[in-house]
């Protein structure tokens, strides 16, 4: 019973390790240089964190992922002086990225949803987009990504950060500005909806 959770924790850490370079004095030094307008330091920052941010942005909004990543780095560069070093560079960048994603969604005219505001009917889709149809095409992961995009924004973001990026609840709480219990509740709700959506694939 406990072997599995341990494995999950280790897997999350490995996943997180691959995506997030370990934040250390080098990162803080890098940010100091970026704050002083050092282009080479900024290029290094981009190399270290593009993959991490691209994974979040793509899962949040695949069609605008590149723009979202560019906007995130633009804001990070322009406001690098405000990075105080109290949080990890990755957390700071995640927070900017989340804000960019939410703002983009609002501007695009599809309002963000709050907890409890979404009914099950929103999960209904066209026949050719049903998960079982996608499974026949071997598009399992695409079905998961499509189901993800049907979630309310907070549930979606918690799911991405926890399950796909491997962040701890403490980090999610820091990034999204919600308490840890709210993050757990959002994750459970997201999983219920996704499991319902993917039901035909889980046989």
């Amino acid at each position, binding site marked *: *019973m*406990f072997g*599995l*959770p*341990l494995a*999950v*924790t280790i897997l999350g850490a490995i*996943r997180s390790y691959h*995506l997030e370079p370990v934040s250390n004095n080098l990162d803080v030094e890098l940010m100091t240089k970026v704050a002083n*307008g050092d*282009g080479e330091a*900024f*290029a290094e920052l*981009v190399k270290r964190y*593009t*993959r991490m941010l*691209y994974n979040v942005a*793509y899962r949040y909004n695949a069609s605008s992922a*590149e723009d979202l*990543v*560019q906007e995130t*780095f*633009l*804001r990070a*560069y*322009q*406001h690098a*002086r*405000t990075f*105080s070093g*109290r949080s990890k560079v990755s957390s*700071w960048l995640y*927070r*900017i990225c989340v*804000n960019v994603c*939410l*703002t983009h969604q*609002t501007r695009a005219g599809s*309002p*963000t949803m*709050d907890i409890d505001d979404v009914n099950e009917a929103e999960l209904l889709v066209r026949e050719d987009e049903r998960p079982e149809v996608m499974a026949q095409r071997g598009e*399992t992961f695409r079905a*998961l990504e499509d189901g993800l995009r049907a979630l309310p*924004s907070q549930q979606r973001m918690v799911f991405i950060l926890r*399950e*796909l990026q491997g962040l701890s609840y403490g980090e999610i709480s820091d990034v*999204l*500005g*919600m308490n840890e219990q*709210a993050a*757990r509740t959002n*994750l*459970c709700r997201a*999983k*219920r909806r*996704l*499991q319902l959506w*993917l*039901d035909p694939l*889980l046989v």
Partner: protein
Amino acid sequence: MECSEALDLLYESFDAQITPAQAALLNGHRRTCFACAGTLAKAQRFQDLIRRVPQLTVPRGLEARVIERVLHKSANSFSQQMKVIRPAFSWRTALRPALASGGVLAAALAVFFIAHSMLSNTFHRPTDQTVVATVQGSLQDVAPNKQTSEIDSTDTPLSTGEVLRPIGALPAIVSITPHLALIMSSGSEVQVGKLHYDQSSGLADVIFLNLRRGTLRINEILHRDVSPVQVATRQATFVPTGTTFSVDAKTDATDLAVTAGSVAVHMPGRVFSVIAGHGVHITATDVVRNVLLGKHPKVNPLP
């Protein structure tokens, strides 16, 4: 145990978040409840599926495009900033002939009065609790020692304990940092509850505001690692995370409207967050969430 509770527990067990006692309860339920056996088995398969989700590789050339765009755009905005700054230098240039013609005595007097003025300000205002804000519009400023003054100029020091009230029918815009503006509506009253200026970073890292009455709109364009501002009313405290929101304080209720980002609402015994496009009406007994129908006009902080 209800089947829905069992499903939540199973999800939490994937996260290593359940106690041995909860694990025993869950196992007991799995052995005896045939109704949800299928759902729980699917939850397990669902978790396996999530674990197999591959990490995406970055599209070819994205890093180069990001670097090129960001550095190019920032270079442009820097040259625009330089154009804005120039008038300040022309003022200094204009002053030079006056100093030259006025002679040494006039310069010495000017230096004396400026230094005297600065010293008297710092005496009353602890430097770590003072920021220089840019004010657009007219404000009445009541210092902790009850001394009242009018502010209608650009750079003005603000300190812990001061009370601000817009004068007249127009709102007043107070830019505390280059990224943070307060828009005070006519009739509103805000007390600077606590303020801390970090001398090493050159930024205000704590700004607690008590909104005593009226409407206060916060526009925080930058997404900081920790937002310095908090707004308190009788009913709740609002903590933004890089956002735009307004708080309307009445005697018995507070209305919050969030137009960008999100705001954490701290009330006795509970904390919740309100995200962009949503609002909340808070009274002593109720919290009512609502969806914003109209959009608030965007007001940028002054450069």
